[in-house]
């Protein structure tokens, strides 16, 4: 296995209403990297990451950990790439935290005992072991985000994709999330508008514009080039 975890070539996608969301995207993610995807709303960032584990299927080639993303390989691909959604509320649908975190491992064929052990370990990793038996809707936004990440970590993925991870989080929650992500060894893709967060976490960035990657490079460089910094 080489150091390339994700390879995308000429990815195009059009929604049913005719909107052309991706117009030929080329992208690579290497082992150990954290890449921020920047760009305006509607520029294709989220549509792009939904292709990485086959939730959307467009034209072009997408390869994850050596597996072409197609119907046959979906279980292998989804085992290797964990997608953390913007709104954790939509990801935490089981009645208790432990059941939710164990959802992925059970789907991948682990026994109840193995899935429980994986779930408990993942909850420990994100510092939420004490919440195992709580109902998800009793958790704060930051806690929900941690549990959502635990639900992905329990599947033991090689790649983490986080869509707007700092949304709904207060500054301490954002710091705490950044510390957690920095500890995790997986390669990461961060879809974000939060430039300070992207600067702190990412080794490089890709800037999306009108369905293509307009430029790649250091976060600071892209922020200057596209005038993408926060106010002030």
């Amino acid at each position, binding site marked *: 296995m080489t150091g390339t975890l994700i390879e995308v070539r000429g990815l195009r996608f059009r929604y049913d209403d005719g909107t052309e969301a991706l117009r030929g995207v080329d992208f690579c993610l290497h082992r150990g990297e954290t890449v921020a995807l920047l760009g305006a709303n509607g520029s294709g960032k989220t549509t792009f990451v939904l292709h990485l584990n086959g939730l959307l299927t467009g034209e072009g080639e997408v390869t994850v950990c050596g597996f072409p993303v197609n119907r046959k390989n979906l279980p292998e691909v989804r085992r290797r790439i964990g997608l953390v959604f913007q709104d954790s509320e939509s990801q935490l649908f089981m009645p208790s935290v432990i059941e939710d975190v164990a959802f992925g491992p059970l789907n991948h064929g682990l026994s*109840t005992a193995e899935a429980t052990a994986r779930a408990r370990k993942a909850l420990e990793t994100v510092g939420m072991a004490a919440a195992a038996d709580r109902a998800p*809707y009793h958790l704060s936004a930051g806690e929900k985000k941690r549990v959502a990440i635990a639900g992905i970590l329990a599947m033991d993925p090689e790649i983490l994709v986080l869509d707007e991870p700092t949304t709904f989080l207060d500054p301490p929650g954002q710091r705490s999330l950044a510390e957690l992500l920095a500890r995790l060894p997986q390669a990461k893709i961060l879809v974000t508008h939060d430039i300070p967060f992207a600067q702190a976490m990412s080794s490089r960035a890709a800037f999306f514009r009108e369905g293509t990657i307009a430029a790649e490079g250091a976060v600071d460089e892209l922020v200057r080039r596209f005038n993408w910094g926060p106010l002030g």
Partner: protein
Amino acid sequence: MHHVVLERWSRGTSAVHRRDPRVKALATLAFLIVIATAHRQLPWLATACFVLLCGVTLAARLPVRPAVLRAGIVLSFTVVFAAMSWISGDPARAVSLLLKSYLSAFAVLLLVSTTRISVLLHGMERLGAPRFLLMVVQFLYRYLFVISEEAQHMRAAALSRGAGAGHATRRSRLQAAGGAVAALFARSYGRAEDIHRSMLARGFSGEFRTLESLRLSAADVWFGTLAVLVPILIRIVIERSV
């Protein structure tokens, strides 16, 4: 939110809570049949069953008064039909309707207050209930709170823009309410799509697997036998003796 209270109650550790969900579901079903098919001496039977349910509530270490009051929520629906029966000259039917619906609601309330929803649904699945229906119930239970919160936010937004200030006509209020319901539906639909995507992303392939594993113990069998027989015996005794 009522279901938050029930969820808290369902996490108790009493002997009733620990019983197998299949046994409790079957016992509840037996109780409902006993009540629904009763015609003679209904007030006496209803009183005895009410005392029995209160006894189970105490055994489950649940607060009796709040449980009794919560079960009464169902009366807001049945009282309309009871009133119609009363007005049409059948007061016995009206009383029967109220008593039966209240006791049925109380029994079901006890079932969901002493069994965590995931365990209950798993038990129902093992009893042969359609999996799709159970999934719908589970998601409804999980997201009722979220949808309700969204509705409250929309109401607050409407109020902050002067809704309810008394200047709006009935027609414009209805239009606003219709728009709010449509927006809520669209949001719920969007959330459902997000939930489905997040399930697929974690390997969901159509079969719902859970951590729960059920084992029937001797205590479950005894509890089930008693829970089924007691209401039947109560009915037989009352119908023969009073």
